[in-house]
């Protein structure tokens, strides 16, 4: 088996290019040298082994500012959401009836004046009735009259 690369016919003119892409072809004797150089670590031209990676190599070095900025922005956004939630910005206006001391932005004067106490109590009554209906339905189905 010939290990020598046979250039296509008429490749003679390309010989220089081919030689350039395969620089080591002509130095078979250097294989042992290369192994020696890797073991001894004296070859400064070869790629570094994994354990030779420098400690100060930073994967974020190429885009540090953007990455850190995004984390910071996400954190700030989450904090803002939490503050809004804590101050009750997401809850319905009716829920504020019992808490008159709240931030100015939580409720406008218009919504405050349109608040209907009777309506609120009616809604609460309905919720109690709903809970009762659910329990009563289960009792009717599974224990009707039989509980001593």
């Amino acid at each position, binding site marked *: 088996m010939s290990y020598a690369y046979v250039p296509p016919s008429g490749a003679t003119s390309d010989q220089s290019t081919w030689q350039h892409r395969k620089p080591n072809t002509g130095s078979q004797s250097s294989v042992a040298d290369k192994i020696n150089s890797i073991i001894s670590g004296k070859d400064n031209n070869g790629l570094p082994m994994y354990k030779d990676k420098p400690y100060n190599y930073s994967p974020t070095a190429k885009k540090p500012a953007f990455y850190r900025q995004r984390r910071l922005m996400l954190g700030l956004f989450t904090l803002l959401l939490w503050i809004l939630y804590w101050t009750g910005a997401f809850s319905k206006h009716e829920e504020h009836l019992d808490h008159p001391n709240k931030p100015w932005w939580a409720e406008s004067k218009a919504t405050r004046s349109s608040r209907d106490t009777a309506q609120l109590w009616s809604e609460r009554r309905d919720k*109690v*009735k709903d809970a*009762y*209906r659910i329990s*009563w339905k289960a*009792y*009717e189905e599974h*224990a*009707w*009259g*039989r*509980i*001593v």
Partner: protein
Amino acid sequence: MVPNGMGWIIIDALDTMMLMNLTTELSHARDWVATNLTFEQDHDVNTFETTIRMLGGLLSAHYLSTEFPNLAPLPAADVPAGEDLYLEKATDLADRLLGAYESSSGVPFASINLKTTKGIPSHDDGGASSTAEATSLQLEMKYLAKLTGETHYWEAAEKVMQVVDDNGARDGLLPIFIYADQGNFRGEQIRLGSRGDSYYGTFSSPKMSPTTSNPHT
């Protein structure tokens, strides 16, 4: 277990369903009372619990359905003319409960058999009844006396208070157990909590105080 069930929860919830205006649920419950509820059962019940829950539940259902007919109104077709379902059941039950008061002192026994209407001394506490239980039967028995005009319901409940008073409460405080047969207290333990509490609550209403003795005055 009671063969035919007692429907404690159904009776308990009648007034609740009226107040909540739950017509469908109330209609179902009323049907059960009309067709299934019977006190003719060989079953021992606690005198006090049966009075406040069963008798009280029926009486409150009677009160609400007659005084506030707009609450969970039933179709007229469902209610036979002249039928007073809740009051009739209440009277039947109270007649059985009266058996508990047939002790030598008039203080009711702790329990009763619904079928035989015979009073049963407590299985614990030396057979003594709870003072709170024996003295907290006023409201139901006296209201039934008012509704039916039958004074013996009133007198049975009132007699208990007289026996208790005759024992002489020191500083208005009573021991928590009282013997049904002799009408005397058992022990000297006093509680404002269990077995004592509702005796004192009885006096929060002037109409229920022991000095009011006759329904017709």
